[in-house]
Every structure is written in C-alpha cells, then in structure tokens.
C-alpha cells in the first residue's frame, strides 16, 4: 500500500516537473525564427561566463540573457559569425570560445593530449620489450638438465 502511494506521488511530481521544464523551454523562440536559429548556432559555440560549463545557448544566467541580446543585435546589424565571435573575444578573451583558435598560445591545449599519447606509447613499447627480454627462458646448464631428469624420474 505504502508503495502504491509512493509511486503515485512520484508519478505526479514527474508530470509536474516535466510540464514546468517544457514551459520554460518554449520561451526564447522570438518573432524571427531565422534570426533565432542563427543565434542558437552561434551561441552554442560560446561559453557562458557565469556558469562556466554551459554554453551561451543553454544558460539561464542573466549575463547570458544580456549577451544573447547583444548577439541578436549584432546579427540584425549584419555582422558575420566571425565578427560576432571576435566581438566577444575582444571583451571576454579566448575563454568564451568552446573551440579556441589554433595559435601558439593554445598549442598545448590542442596538441598536448596527442603528445601525451605518443609519449605513453613509447613508454609502453619500451616496457613491453623489457618484459619480453625478462620472460625469455634462461638457458639450462648440462648439470641442471641432469638434475631435472633425475627429479622427474624420481
């Protein structure tokens, strides 16, 4: 009985929360769907400065709202995607880009992991070679062979 009540409460709360989130999701769609589509396109590539692991497209932070509004106006004034990104980088730095440009400052970021992989592969190769050398059967002397035979016989 308890279980039934619990399930009912769970079901009701799921329905409630689901409808709340649906209600929220629908808001940003504004008058001009083309402009909004471009806004989403651009802002998915940009980081929200307040909640740093969210994109500008998905963030509900107030600054994100303001920045989306800024991007909207830049789109309306006919700026290209690159110009809009440059506008934000000039103010907030490379950090706003989820895909930072490849330049000397970001080389470690882009190529570091591959460099680590290569180094690890070299270490692995050396280690395996050493182990194979260790595991190679040691040659037996004649005395040892004789003793082994004796033992096996016995």
């Amino acid at each position: 009985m308890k279980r039934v009540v619990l399930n009912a409460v769970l079901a009701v709360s799921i329905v409630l929360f689901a409808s709340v989130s649906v209600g929220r999701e629908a808001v940003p769609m504004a008058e001009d769907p083309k402009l909004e589509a471009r806004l989403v396109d651009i802002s998915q590539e940009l980081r929200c400065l307040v909640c740093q692991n969210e994109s500008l497209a998905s963030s509900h932070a107030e600054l994100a709202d303001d920045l989306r509004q800024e991007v909207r106006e830049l789109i309306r004034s006919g700026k290209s995607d690159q110009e809009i990104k440059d506008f934000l980088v000039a103010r907030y730095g490379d950090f706003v880009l989820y895909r930072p440009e490849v330049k000397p400052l970001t080389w470690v970021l882009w190529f570091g992991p591959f460099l680590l992989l290569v180094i690890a592969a070299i270490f692995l190769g050396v280690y395996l070679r050493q182990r194979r050398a260790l595991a190679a059967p040691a040659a037996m002397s004649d005395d040892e062979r004789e003793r082994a035979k004796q033992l096996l016989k016995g």
Partner: protein
Amino acid sequence: MKKVLIPLVLFFGLVAFLAVGLKRDPREIPSPLLGKPAPHFTLFTLDQGDTKFSPADMQGQVWMLNVWATWCVACREEHPVLVAFSEKNQVPIVGLSYKEIQPQDPAYKSPFDEKLKLARERSQVWLKRHGNPYVTSVMDMDGRVGINYGVYGVPETYVIDKAGVIRYKFVGAVTPALLAEKILPLISELNKS
C-alpha cells in the same frame, strides 16, 4: 630499488599538479582588455539632473573603476574596504552601478526615466548607509557598458592609467591585502610615469 621510486615520484608529481589546480580560482579569467584603452562610454551619474560622466573626464589621472550594485552581496563585504581606502585620498574611485534594476524587479519594464530615478534613489540611500567611496558613480542601467568592459561578476575593479589604458582588473571583493600589495604599488608606479 630505483624502480620502486618511480610510482612514488609520479604520485607526488600528480599531487603537486592537483594542489596547484585546487588553489587556482576557475572564475578568474584573464581579461583581454589589459593594456588596451578603456572602452568609451557616456552615462548619467548618480546625481540628479542630466550630469554625465565619460572616462575622457579622467584623462591625465590614474583612477579606479569599481563595478557595484545595491543588490550585490559581495559588494557589501567589499564596501567598507573601499570606503577606508578612499579616505586616504590616494586615487579617485569612480563607481559603475551595474544593472541596478534587475529583470525580476517589477519596475524593470517601466520607462527609462522612471527606472533611472528609482535606481538613483536606491543607490543614494545605500551609499548613505554604507558610506560613499566614489568621486562619482555612473548608472549602467542595461549593462551594455558592463559588456564592453567584459564584466561577468560584480564586484569588479579596474585600474586605469593617465592615458586611459586599463592596467589591472580584479574580479571579486577587493581586500586590504590586495590593495596594499598589488593595487597601491601599481598606482604609485603609474603616477610616476
């Protein structure tokens, strides 16, 4: 014997990296504006009427720009520090009241003049209660000037030199230690040139 030490060395290396990583504040983002001219703006000040302020008014002086708001909790912690600092008259501090009327405020949708009036009143009351460290404070009602300065968390503090170039930026509440160790030496150095 030496082989046994390798994991130990690796372990301590990892610990060192993590220790440094833990101490760093991920919210601290290096500003690309350092060494660049402070973005231009002209905004209404806190005073009644049509008085306006623009960074060009400070040309020839080293000055500080402090972003604040009455709704900002960290500003309350910072404010006494700024007030005590301003009493020494070492550098003029200009306030930038950032989005005083927030979107969730019922007054947010009212006409600009009404919003400005309300924002000025609130800010003045707040400064009267907590003390006023600013030579003047400007009203950035919609946060557009904030965006031009790369503001992403209030309070923020900038040091701007005689030629109007941003020399330093700090995000978060300024502490007496930061003022004594970083900001004051920088200001006296900038004042010499």
